[in-house]
């Protein structure tokens, strides 16, 4: 393993304020780690263990980010496994889920293996892989999902590629559920998106930019919900952006449709109004929407319609944003600000910190059916320590990630990460 010094087998994290949302732990105490796992307190045995003083710090499960692009293989000028998992470790994230839209597309076990091999060499963050729903993401032929399941894929996805043929969609979803693979979906109808750049509103009108109407999302969510219901297949809606779509998912969950959903952290802070000066750092896909939509997403978190918050990390090279807005590539670098923004949201959005930390730890673990995202005895020692009371200033150009674009440049954020452990190994220390 590279770069970061390894500690011996036993680690005692002392006097930290342990927050473990899944197990309802919220108290000052010690955390014992041995051989990469959380173990029962054994003060005698841990006398000569490596001690980490976490007094006045929060100790929580390492974060699980349901969507982050590492850009490898295929787009190494934007990022690679080493650079992006370093950024994850710095952000207290111990697992990222990647989408299949690499080059080549993740539609065979060989590509899964390649990525896992690269990631094993880096050794900084677990990577969970979503396989392609259709071969080459071409929306023609369903992929070999049986093989993808065997190779360890945690789900399947069409990523951000179009799939408007609902018959194909229905069959693909049913086939995925044969192998118990949840289908992760970016529900956005491409015909209704109509080459839109941003949320359709008075702002898009003022800027003369093509708008993406709400119905591009709600129509896709509606039709996909009906199919998840009919096929009784597990679905996961990525990146909800509108209040209406959130309500629809909420009603479906109430009716027992087996679906979950997530939101990207920037949608919880920003709205389309931030684009008013053609600033490409605010260009994301799906688009930032109205203040009312932002409130709807926050309400969706509170009502547990939305279970997870992700970074939707999409690193770009500098040139990708150096163009008029409609030619700028969408996406921002998000791994290094995720935790701090979640903590900030807890403060400004009237959440209990534990409830919100669950959205980046135990809840995403549950969506992935993983025994992770918590600190119970026997769990993998993926741990994040952060300083609740300190602050730091976001400077995109200082990111570890190859992607330096962030709409939060200059923001003063709480909760810098001080330590990240991956299977009991220190992979980041401030």
């Amino acid at each position, binding site marked *: 393993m590279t770069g970061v010094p390894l500690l011996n087998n036993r680690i005692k994290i002392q006097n930290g304020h342990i927050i473990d949302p899944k197990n309802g732990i919220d108290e000052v105490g010690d955390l014992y780690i041995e051989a990469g796992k959380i173990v029962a307190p054994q003060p005698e045995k841990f006398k000569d263990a490596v001690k980490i003083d976490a007094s006045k710090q929060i100790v929580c499960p390492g974060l699980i980010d349901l969507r982050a692009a590492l850009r490898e293989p295929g787009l190494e000028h934007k990022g690679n496994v080493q650079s992006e998992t370093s950024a994850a470790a710095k952000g207290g994230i111990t697992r990222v889920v990647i989408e299949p839209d690499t080059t080549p597309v993740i539609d065979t076990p060989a590509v899964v293996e390649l990525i896992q091999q690269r990631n094993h060499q880096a050794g900084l963050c677990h990577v969970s892989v979503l396989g392609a729903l259709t071969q080459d993401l071409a929306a023609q032929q369903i992929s070999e999902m049986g093989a993808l399941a065997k190779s360890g894929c945690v789900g399947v996805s069409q990523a951000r590629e179009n799939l408007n043929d609902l018959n194909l969609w229905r069959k693909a979803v049913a086939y995925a559920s044969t192998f118990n693979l949840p289908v992760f979906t970016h529900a956005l109808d491409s015909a209704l998106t109509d080459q839109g750049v941003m949320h*359709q*509103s*008075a*702002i*898009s*009108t*003022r*800027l*003369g*930019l093509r*708008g993406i*109407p709400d119905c591009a999302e709600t129509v896709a969510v509606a039709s996909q919900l009906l199919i998840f219901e009919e096929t009784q297949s597990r679905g996961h809606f990525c990146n909800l952006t509108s209040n209406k779509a959130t309500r629809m998912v909420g009603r479906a969950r109430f009716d027992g449709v087996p679906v979950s959903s997530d939101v990207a952290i920037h949608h919880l802070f920003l709205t389309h*109004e931030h684009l*008013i*000066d*053609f600033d490409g750092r605010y260009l994301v896909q799906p688009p930032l929407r109205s203040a009312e939509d932002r409130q709807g997403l926050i309400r969706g978190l509170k009502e547990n319609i939305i279970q997870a918050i992700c970074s939707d990390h999409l690193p770009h090279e500098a*040139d990708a944003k*150096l*163009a*008029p*807005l*409609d*030619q700028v590539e969408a996406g921002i670098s998000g791994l290094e600000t995720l935790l701090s923004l979640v903590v900030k949201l807890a403060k400004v959005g009237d959440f209990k910190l534990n409830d919100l930390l669950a959205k980046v730890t135990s809840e995403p673990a549950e969506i992935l059916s993983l025994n992770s995202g918590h600190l119970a005895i026997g769990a993998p020692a993926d741990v994040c320590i952060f300083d609740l009371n300190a602050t730091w200033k976001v400077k995109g150009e200082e990111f570890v990630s190859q992607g330096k674009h962030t709409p939060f440049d200059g923001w003063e954020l709480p909760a810098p990460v001080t330590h990240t452990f991956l299977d009991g190994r220190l992979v980041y220390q401030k």
Partner: protein
Amino acid sequence: MSLITPSLQIDGQGRLRHFLTTEGLSQALLTEIMDVAESFMSVAHRETKKVPLLRGKTIANLFFEASTRTRTTFELAAKRLSADVININISTSATNKGETLLDTLRNLEAMNVDMFVVRHESSGAAHFMAANVPEHVAVINAGDGNHAHPTQAMLDLFTIRRHKPDFSQLTIAIVGDILHSRVARSHMHALQTLGVKELRIIAPKTLIPAGVTELGVKIFNHLEPGIEGADVVMMLRLQRERMIGALLPSAHEYFQCYGLTESVLSAANEDVLVMHPGPINRGVEIDSRVADGPKSVILQQVTHGIAIRMAVMSMAMRTHDGGSAIEQPN
């Protein structure tokens, strides 16, 4: 909602640095542009149609979209100000070879260009350029995507003012493809700032942009009630490509419903001005008898375009020369 565009196109003393959009410009500045244009109106009638205000300056007309009228009037305006002008038609050159807008800009900067006049198919292209040029270079927007065409708006307002000086008394109707019109957007901002009595837009629902009433306009979906009592009717050009697909069924139906004919025009005020930014589609949005009729000021608009562009170029260059009085050669 914050808008930093003004600080991009206005300097610390409230003067024009770049001319990107009419949005956010003060009434005083819009009036100044028209006053300066008025002072240039006589130049065209002199024996030597030139003033030496921009002597020694190099102006690049960067047209990424085809245009005859706008490019020509910008060129004439620059020449009447004694500047050196280069015309670069980029739709057929560099960007097709994969060069980015920024690279094109850097290359031209290296040739010591003092001012860029830019037309580009991307909304925000002029903003992007203004944000990326050195301090001493000015950018004039000659139309960016569907966003803004501020010199066209100003020449239209100038034309109106020469006939009907008090904007607070005027009901103005803009007819046609509002959705794709950068001209209409620039009109809306400028006319609101000048305190127009009523600004109407007239179009079928497919051509009305989202949330447009927030820009202070009244929507009409039918022509005759829309132009009833209007003092000015501005027709917009309907691009042929809008006939394809779901926006409009046919040119024929469009003309039947929204084409300006003499009989429809009788609903407007007796002394109504008929305007069009050109080039006109006869028999699509406007009947020839109206376009060429006594109420039409369409050709005056073209003449006024030169004066307005002279005004904007000289004002922006003045700021970049350090704010002193315009340098007069000996």
